């Protein structure tokens, strides 16, 4: 009984924080990128950089971390048909865990992208880290492409997350 409750709770939290992470990712890409460009052109972009982006990036990066940790925990509560721990079976792309494993690998790449590429470059763009104008322009391009890459990867990632329990489509 506790195992089922534990699995349900972990899945629930994983989905909630995953919505926050990918929701903010879509906000950055589908709403903010063009809106900030227009606001900057009109000389009104400072408020976005000062009040919205730091707060949005705070929830974005911590939701990414929590999504990954809880997802890893959820996989660890499972066991493959061959008796392997679910985390190892998924990341080892083994048997019935291969589809969710592909989703887990894509989510891992996205998570690393957030913490290793997007956040350090956003710190330069927002002036939280010292940077010259040239460094800021470079950081803007790198952060933009990493964010777009994550948006692209989120599409197959979500597919494998939601089709994990529907094994028949993979046979």
């Amino acid at each position, binding site marked *: 009984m506790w195992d089922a409750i534990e699995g349900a709770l972990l899945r629930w939290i994983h989905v909630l924080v995953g919505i926050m992470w990918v929701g903010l990712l879509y906000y950055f*890409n*589908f709403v903010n990128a063009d809106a900030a460009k227009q606001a900057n052109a009109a000389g009104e972009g400072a408020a976005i950089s000062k009040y919205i982006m730091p707060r949005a990036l705070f929830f974005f990066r911590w939701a990414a971390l929590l999504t990954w940790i809880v997802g890893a925990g959820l996989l660890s509560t499972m066991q493959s*048909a*061959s008796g392997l721990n679910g985390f190892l079976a998924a990341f080892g*792309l*083994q*048997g*019935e865990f*291969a*589809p969710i*494993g*592909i989703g887990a690998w*894509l989510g891992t790449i996205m998570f690393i992208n957030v913490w290793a590429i997007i956040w350090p470059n956003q710190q330069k763009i927002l002036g939280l880290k010292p940077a010259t104008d040239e460094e800021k322009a470079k950081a803007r391009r790198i952060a933009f*492409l990493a964010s*777009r*890459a994550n*948006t*692209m*990867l*989120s*599409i*197959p990632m979500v*597919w*494998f997350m939601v089709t994990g329990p529907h*094994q028949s489509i*993979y*046979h």
Partner: protein
Amino acid sequence: MKNPLDSLWGTVISGIVLTVVFFYVAQWLVARTSAGG
């Protein structure tokens, strides 16, 4: 060649193409690594 990630449509279409590619990879992996496979 233009980077597809520079446009939202290019990003979404690239994601859908990747989904199809990974779907077949997943089918192949399930068949190859399932018990007795």
